[in-house]
């Protein structure tokens, strides 16, 4: 069940797209994801109802995007850039460090639900490669030490 607040936010998105309710679908999914971390089947049905769409229609869009999570994720989602610039300057080393020091595997969530690690395409932070997106925040110039410091603040 969506909360009053979520419903309200979705309604606002719908109002903002002036008569094209469907155009609010990505924002509506993000409204849900913002609080719940991911979009469950039940949430998706609720979103569909708000937009006058069928669940299939919403899911057709939701599953296209890679930052709408249709599966449960951990408390923090770490998207590590595996595109060229980062690949060249240290992606592999970071990945290895995440595995060795933090027990993070690509595509997996830690047993304590603390982190989900996913690969992501270029984050547009190439001049600060290697980079990652952690809970929506961009971090560049990563080194193992800097990574440790950042992750430590994410309980």
């Amino acid at each position, binding site marked *: 069940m969506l909360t009053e607040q979520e419903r309200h936010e979705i309604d606002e998105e719908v109002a903002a797209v002036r008569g094209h309710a469907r155009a609010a679908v990505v924002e509506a999914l993000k409204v849900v994801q913002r609080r719940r971390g991911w979009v469950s*089947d039940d949430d*998706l049905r609720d979103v569909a109802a708000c937009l006058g769409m*069928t*669940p*299939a*229609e919403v*899911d*057709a869009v939701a*599953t*296209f995007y890679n930052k709408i999570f249709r599966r449960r994720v951990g408390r923090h989602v770490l998207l590590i850039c595996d595109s060229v610039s980062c690949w060249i300057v240290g992606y592999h080393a970071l990945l290895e460090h995440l595995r060795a020091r933090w027990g993070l595997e690509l595509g997996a969530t830690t047993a304590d639900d603390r982190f989900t690690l996913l690969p992501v395409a270029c984050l547009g932070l190439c001049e600060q490669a290697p980079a990652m997106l952690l809970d929506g925040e961009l971090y560049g110039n990563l080194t193992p030490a800097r990574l440790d410091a950042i992750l430590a603040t994410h309980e």
Partner: protein
Amino acid sequence: MPAIIIDGKEYRYEGEGRNLLEVCLSLGFAVPYFCWHPAMHAVGACRQCAVKVFTDETDTRGKIVMSCMTAAADGMRVAIHDPEVADFRARVIEWLMVNHPHDCAVCDEGGECHLQDMTVMTGHVSRRYRFDKRTYRNQELGPFVHHEMNRCIQCYRCVRFYRDYAGGRDLEVFGAHDHVYFGRFADGVLESPFSGNLVEVCPTGVFTDKVFKEQYARKWDLATAPSVCTLCGHGCNILPGARDGTLRRVRNRYHHAVNGYFICDRGRYGFQFVNSEFRVRTPLLRDGGTLRAASADEALARVRTVLAEGTVAGIGSPRASVEANYALRALVGAERFCHGLPEKEFTLLEALVALMRSARTPFPTLPEVERADAVIILGEDLANTAPRLELALRQAARIVPDELEAAALGVLPFDDAALRAATQGGTHPLFLAVTGATSLDAMATARCRAVPDELARLALAVAHRLDPSAPAVTDLGADAAALADRIADALRTAKRPLLICGASAGSPALIAAAGQLLRALDTAGTAPMLRVVAPACDSMGVALLGGISLEEAARADTLIILDSEQLSAAQVAGATHIICLDSLLTEIGERAEVVLPAATFAESGGTLVNSDGLAQRFFQVFVPEGDIRESWRWIAEILGQPWANLDALLAEIAAELPVFAPMREAAPPADYRLDGQKIPRQSPRCSGRTAMTAHVSVHEPVPPDDPDSPLAFSMEGASGQPPAPLVPRFWAPGWNSVQAVNTFQEEVGGPLREGVLCRVIVPAGSAPPAAPVPPAFVPREDALLILPAYHLFGSEPLSLLTPGIAALAPAPYLALHPADAARLGVTVGSMVTVTLGETALTLPVVPREDVPRGAGLLSVGLVETPDALPAWGAVRGGAHA
């Protein structure tokens, strides 16, 4: 005629604004394709249809283009057999095969798979991809369609048909890149009444026929013959396939003007009564209290005795062929022949015929319906009464820019995605004047939901606005008056307005009002098109045949009844002797003195007159086991063989009843020969015929003779393409799938070669019947006006014998407006008793906002209704389910 140069040779081609693929296919070139579909046009996704075009004769390099996304143009130079582009096409197949499971041997589509055909056509033979394939989980999609996603080649046709073309909203494409999935949000029954078309639309074995799967046979092992669906009045052309004495499946048989490429799920799956355990396979005779099997001679002797007793009446059937009805009429005499309908229902049919004859504009074919630019529907819930027409109206409602507009926008007239992007789901005016919610509501410009008399008043009000000499409706409410203004304006300004009216609301007043409206539109100078909806496959046939009413016939001592399943036992309760010509043992049959085993549509041939007044021939598909014969043949036996074969019977009908004279043209006569030979019902590859009878004899049996048609129960015979009405299967060298239909058309998407449109009801501009303005509807305190509500799955009795259809049919109900429910003190799920005449029905209540105040919608077909509806019914509530 423009010309095009293909592989160095010049060809003339037909048609402006067509794409290169259609032109090449129409010229007989084998250009492979997947995502393009002649009814759904091009999107350019699969890249299979690549050809090369050259700018001029000096251009030797050329450019690879997708033929489906390229407009053919006069003087264009094209190469199909250029090595570079031929290689590209083979590589496209290779890519599609990367994840395809190569499970042809166990795949239902094998042997009629477009992907197989295209693979062979492009010459891709050996596998170079050496890595893993991806796999998917399949979904459970309900009783009709089987899902096998691993075979998917992502042509997007399924969603384009289901969602874009048919308006379904529960099948979608999910995911991205090489992980796209076509299915539902979750397992569950596909909601669209056209879901079965996925089986034909899918070019490989992702969506296959689940019913067929239960007793599967390869395509080439099925005996097939051209047939016509008998499950509603529309008369879609079908290709039933039988093997080993059972009917296994029904597929669409392309007919440009009637059903195009698609049929509904009732038509596709509702055939299982043919194989029913309740079939009567030998004559049954009453001995004392029970029916026992008897020989034909014995039964016929008894029939003759019974017919000699007392007054006799013959009860025909709007679900039987013209020939069967006529034969019965010949047996009992015109004045003792009943058309099979209660007086009220027959009056409606007569009114429809009169309405059709009052038209001045030719009746629109299916493509013409699809191009209507303003539509008003009077009283029909089309998805449930004429589903194929509903699908056509979905296309009509959709705005498609005409060629000039498209050109101004830079849109290619065959680019489906661009057309949809340009029009953004915009719709033409579509007005619904109906008794409840319908599937077209979401597309409608405006709708009026009211009891039939009110709908008639609205139609008359519109007519008056278009033609002041038409009677005025003086006491119309403000809302209705405003709606009438809107409708009149939209129809007046339309270029191709279409009026749809039928019998299902049960209202002669509404049909009369439609006549007024049609005439008014004509007076207003709009050349209105008319499409009529009749309830059963031969309603119009019996309407033309005429006869006494069921009420009158039922007073006879002795009744001989065709297809008694359409009657209730109560309707014939007064008769002393009953003879049934039935394919199924019915309640009436159980009381009969003789039951003669009658052939179903699949075991017989004949002619049906559809809603549109078209006479269409259907042919026998297989020879049934037992003593089953065509009804008309049984009658011929009783009469001492007056007709040697169907043609002889047809000749007599034409001579006796000139209205039916054109009917003989519906198909070539039995002595027609193609290249001097009969046309085989079986494919030349038909296997295992000898094996099937090996326990009896190792010699292949002599195929039974077919005196009634130029078709043979054999795989031997002519191999060429027969005239359209005789096409028993769509096959051409290299084209084993249903897509072979391209090679049978005059041009792609057009009529079949040597097709016929044989009209027995024609627009004659005769005066429409007078349409007095009905008084405004006044709800009653003590009763509801009970109106019929139809269900695609449920309101047609024979198709209910298909288990999947029975499973999807709703439970009987009475729907009424919540305010009426409150007034009557009934709530959801509680039971009410509706008293109609003598009969009291107890039904669960469904409160629904869409039901007009003072009315009740009663599901028909699911409960036996004693009276023709609408009728006032006293409603008593209170009981609990």
